[in-house]
């Protein structure tokens, strides 16, 4: 891997950028590996990278049915924050946020992490109480989160409409200043490049069609479109398709898959200096470096793998955006798309071992896993390498649905992303 530096950039600029080599190897499958990761999204690639970089497991394949980073990784609105309510969640999302802060440097790849602040709006007394409860819990855990009055919220985001006559007036906001956004593609590419340089094989256009188990029940490898690949350890990191993959090993999951949509507007000069989220009226917005407003909508109400989502879901969000930010009313939307998100009953992820020896799973990130990409990959890699859960991952075990020890971010916050 050729490292990026001021010197290499200058040299290539002067040579018309003719000297760059591909950033990772597009590998063909070998017959066997020490570990196979199913799914080359951000989480799967991060897992492979940390396996190779920190756990000494380098004979690893990442097997992807489409192209690298073409799933939810490339479809999400890239909101990053760590101000969740419960201690288990605070631990994993804050672990991740700390990794984001140094990620571009660690990977030698610009992931464009931009801590521009995530502001979550309160529109009702209930919202205000919930957000303040989060603020207090976060501060006890040493995580930044602060309360803003409507005037302070408008100072932070000048185009926010704080007119008290609104149908859902802004009563205040919770602000996490270290929250922000990052470049989703760059995260997948950066991990792929760094993992590939350490010897990880990234195998694209190779759907896993079966999970082979031996007479003892343990995993032996995966059947793919390009033949059988053997490995004593398999980690499934397939987001919305996790139920389908785990069913191949005979494991039924506490998951449901829903379409989640996003849209971008035509590009405009900078108007939106931060990320604004409103859970009550279901709208999320930020502005990309290209100038497009990036808008996240809600999920459809029914399970689906259609990767589209209903138009009425997106238009509900646009109505809310137009009321909160009247200045954007005449903007046109350029594109909309959907991803399939895997939702758990308590809206917390599932990370760890499964009833099948050698089979591991990392899923259930639902509508909000992009922010967790580095932390999730990190703790999952350690879990696979040791065979037992990393301490931060341990509370997120699949078994919690049997013991009843849920991590109920849904009831706590009713928050997406």
């Amino acid at each position, binding site marked *: 891997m050729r490292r990026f530096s001021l010197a290499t950039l200058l040299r290539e600029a002067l040579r018309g950028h003719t000297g760059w080599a591909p950033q990772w190897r597009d590998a063909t499958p070998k017959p066997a590996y020490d570990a196979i990761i199913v799914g080359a999204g951000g989480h799967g690639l991060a897992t492979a990278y940390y396996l190779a970089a920190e756990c000494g497991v380098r004979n690893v394949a990442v097997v992807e049915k489409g192209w690298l980073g073409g799933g939810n990784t490339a479809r999400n609105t890239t909101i990053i924050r760590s101000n969740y309510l419960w201690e288990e969640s605070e631990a994993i999302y804050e672990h991740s946020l700390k990794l984001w802060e140094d990620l571009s440097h660690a990977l030698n790849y610009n992931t464009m992490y931009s801590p521009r602040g995530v502001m979550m709006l309160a529109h009702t007394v209930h919202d205000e109480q919930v957000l303040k409860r989060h603020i207090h819990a976060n501060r006890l855990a040493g995580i930044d989160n602060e309360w803003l009055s409507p005037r302070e919220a408008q100072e932070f985001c000048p185009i926010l409409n704080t007119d008290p006559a609104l149908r859902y007036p802004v009563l205040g906001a919770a602000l996490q200043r270290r929250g922000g956004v990052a470049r989703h593609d760059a995260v997948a590419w950066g991990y792929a490049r760094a993992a590939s340089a350490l010897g990880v094989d990234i195998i694209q256009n190779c759907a896993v069609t079966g999970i082979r188990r031996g007479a003892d029940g343990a995993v032996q490898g995966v059947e793919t479109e390009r033949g059988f690949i053997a490995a004593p350890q398999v980690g499934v990191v397939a987001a919305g398709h996790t*139920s389908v993959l785990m069913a191949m090993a005979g494991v039924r*999951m506490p998951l449901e898959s829903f379409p989640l949509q996003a849209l971008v507007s035509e590009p405009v000069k900078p108007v939106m200096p931060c990320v604004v989220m409103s859970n009550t009226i279901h709208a999320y917005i930020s502005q990309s470096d290209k100038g497009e407003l990036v808008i996240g909508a809600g999920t459809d109400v029914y399970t*689906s793998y259609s990767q589209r989502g*209903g138009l009425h879901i997106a238009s509900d969000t646009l109505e809310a955006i137009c009321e909160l930010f009247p200045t954007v009313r005449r903007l046109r939307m350029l594109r909309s798309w959907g991803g399939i998100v895997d939702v758990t009953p308590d809206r917390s992820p599932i990370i760890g071992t499964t009833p099948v020896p050698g089979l591991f799973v990392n899923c259930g990130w639902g509508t909000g896993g992009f922010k967790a990409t580095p932390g999730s990959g990190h703790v999952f890699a350690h879990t696979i390498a040791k065979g037992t859960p990393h301490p931060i991952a341990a509370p997120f075990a699949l078994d919690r649905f049997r013991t009843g020890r849920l991590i109920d971010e849904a009831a706590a916050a009713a928050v997406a992303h």
Partner: protein
Amino acid sequence: MLIIRCPYCEANRPEPEFRHAGAAHIVRPLDPSATTDAEWAEFLYHRDNPRGTVAERWRHIHGCGRFFNALRDTVSDRILSTYPAGQGRPE
């Protein structure tokens, strides 16, 4: 947006008239005290979540108010049939 046929009203109606109510044909354990934690987890949380045909419950909240079931293809989102609650899953 789906167009859903309510089997009671015998009318095709737009999706916002309905509320989705999760997977269908899930039977609550008959003897709760004899039910293990693993069986409760199956009943409460574990779902087939198929890529293909799903049987699911809908409620016609802005119409007759009643629950019914639908078979739907989760890849095309096409509704294959709707039928009254209590009736077995059609072939």
